[in-house]
């Protein structure tokens, strides 16, 4: 597919043309806070601030998603009798039927919800796009065994137009986990900022279709522009530190499950859910039935492993009663249980959890410390402990899947 060029001043026109066919979602600054929002013509797209507060996962995996609406109604049937022809034919059975029908009964209506408007998310970063790929495995996981129709309908209707990270932050660590500032995984078309505009590469058919739909704003890129984009990508990748090596982390987290150092690491955690709600790949949710008088809805809503109620069982027992147990779960899930299931990581290295945590807990440090072999003194205790904790991963994963 040809490599194209979008002049900086043509960006509004480009988005405007996309908006004729689909909802456009882009990072926009409101009251000083950058968030992905449905874009309306005339709004400035904020690309200078590298990362919006939250990843755009909200537009595919809605924070509140209504599964169905329901209602019931009491029906008081009219007095029995009336069908004289039937009564003459078989008086006994009609009498019985009349007695049954005369009792008031409820009618229940159920109305499934499933809206999946076509949408284009522009201005997300390659790490954000990778988050979708990681969630895809869960909501369509095991070859569709756990297929989630709501998530997948939205995902299929969504095109991801990502922008290369020209100036990565010190909190970025995508390269440590197999990504990069110009990573292509999950990206439908990649926009790389060079002098005067963007070099635009379609990477999938969806991406090509989106570019074709807004083709009037695009020109063919020159060789010089393509070369410049290549330099931007290389330079950006070189700016990102690699805080840990992946090798051994999965096994070490397993071996360290009962390690006391989890308590030390969790000390400054306040057990809120900020890290999970800004994360591009945290996907846990709970399901609620909410009834007001005679109508209600069943919806799913984001939940997180720091919420004490998240693991509380019907009996009242909580296998992760302590803050440090819940704290351990987030990192173990991302670097141990999920990799065990899907053979990839549940983290794309965006660093949002670091910069938005109220106490700036650094996932890189946690993985570096707890993903390393336990110090010799603690090794004996740690190797025996997992079976005895009552918090083995099998329990945890039952909730997550």
């Amino acid at each position, binding site marked *: 597919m040809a490599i194209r060029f979008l002049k900086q001043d043509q960006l509004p026109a480009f988005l405007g043309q996309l908006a004729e066919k689909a909802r456009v979602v882009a990072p926009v600054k409101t009251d000083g806070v950058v968030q992905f929002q449905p874009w309306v013509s005339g709004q400035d797209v904020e690309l200078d601030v590298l990362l919006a507060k939250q990843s755009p996962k909200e537009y595919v995996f809605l924070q*509140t998603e209504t599964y169905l609406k329901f209602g019931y109604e009491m029906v008081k049937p009219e007095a029995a009798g009336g069908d004289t022809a039937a009564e003459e034919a078989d008086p006994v059975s009609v009498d019985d039927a009349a007695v049954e029908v005369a009792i008031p009964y409820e009618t229940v209506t159920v109305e499934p919800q499933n809206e999946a408007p076509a949408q284009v998310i522009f201005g997300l970063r390659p790490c954000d796009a990778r988050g979708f790929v990681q969630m895809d495995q869960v909501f369509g996981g095991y070859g569709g065994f756990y297929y989630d129709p709501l998530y997948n309908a939205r995902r299929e209707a969504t095109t991801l137009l990502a922008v290369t990270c020209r100036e990565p932050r*010190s909190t970025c660590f995508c390269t440590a986990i197999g990504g990069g500032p110009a990573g292509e995984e999950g990206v439908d078309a990649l926009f790389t900022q060079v002098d005067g505009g963007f070099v635009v590469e379609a990477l999938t058919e969806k991406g090509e279709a989106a570019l074709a739909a807004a083709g009037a704003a695009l020109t063919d890129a020159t060789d010089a522009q393509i070369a410049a984009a290549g330099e931007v990508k290389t330079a950006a990748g070189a700016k990102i530190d690699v805080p840990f090596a992946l090798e051994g982390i999965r096994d070490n987290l397993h071996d360290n499950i009962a390690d006391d150092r989890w308590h030390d690491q969790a000390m400054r955690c306040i057990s*809120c859910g900020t890290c999970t709600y*800004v994360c591009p790949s945290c996907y846990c949710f709970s399901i609620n039935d909410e009834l007001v008088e005679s109508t209600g809805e069943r919806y799913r809503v984001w939940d997180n492993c720091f919420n004490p109620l998240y693991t509380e069982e019907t009996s009242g027992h909580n296998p992760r009663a302590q803050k440090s147990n819940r704290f351990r779960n987030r990192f173990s899930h991302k670097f141990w249980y999920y990799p065990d299931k899907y053979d990839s990581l549940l983290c794309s290295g965006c660093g949002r959890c670091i910069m938005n945590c109220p106490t700036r807990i650094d996932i890189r440090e946690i993985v570096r410390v707890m993903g390393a072999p336990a110090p010799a003194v603690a090794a004996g205790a740690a190797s025996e402990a997992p079976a005895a904790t009552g918090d083995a991963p099998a329990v945890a994963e039952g909730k997550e899947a």
Partner: protein
Amino acid sequence: MSRQDHIREFAAQALADGRVDYFIGWKQGYNSSEVVPAFVKDPADVDQLIWTPLCHHNLVTFIKRNMPDPADAKIGLCVKGCDSRTLVALLQEELVDKEKLYVVGVPCDGIVDRRKLEKEFADELVDIAFPERGRVVVTTGKGETREFAQDDVLLDVCGRCRYPNALYADDVAGPLEAEPDREESGPDWSDIADFENLSDDEKQAALERVYATCIRCFACVHVCPVCVCWDKCVNRSREPELVAQKVGAKENLLFQMIHMFHVAGRCTSCGACDRACPVEIPLYLLHRKMNKEIYDMFGFEPGTKLDEKPVFQLFDLATDHFGD
């Protein structure tokens, strides 16, 4: 001897004496523009403790219910003047045990609002330095450096500060800061003047607008030092389900109203909720408004007098008034 040196010395002594199991102070975060709470167990590690105008965390959060680990730990901690009010509030309510605490008061001349500085640059901040009192030098990832006057970039709560020194402490880290004449000037409510001047409908609209962006992470609740229900928070309860779990402006506002009523007469305006909110909601609006109503009605300022009972513990049905 600097305040930082005092803190390190007090911490090392308390740890060496076995007076505390661990000591809570502040240390540098992932770069030198960030400060995070520090938990020191070994006297040899006290050198990581720092004191700068970035030490905004109210460490009293870490002694509230279910935070100490182990649960019966003896804890040492630093408190600024504002933080000490939340400690006094918890002591008034007998929610923490004085005997298990060792408190170092840190006189404070104002904490810098990192978010105000962040907004000055598109790029991230990588260093914030304080070459001398009153000067703030900020450096960004691209190497841009700019200087600010500390008074221009203080947290809003610091601009109204009436308690620069701790109201409760076992030891104090250096000389006290000058105290304002509290008799002369009552609390400053100018921060909510604009909000108060709105009509009821406008207030509703303004609140719904700011809470529409809430993501329900509950950081405001968890970081709040006087929010002590922990895993029994009404906002997360499903049985009974009193607050909808779904996210929306009205639902979010309802949950914040409950938070406001629950800390009414207990909130000391430390501002921890504002700073913790990842989407920068001005949470102070509701809490400050409630504080003002309580001050106007009862002359009560939460967390200022250790021998005082919180205003809503004095309510007496028989006499229908508050104690006096």
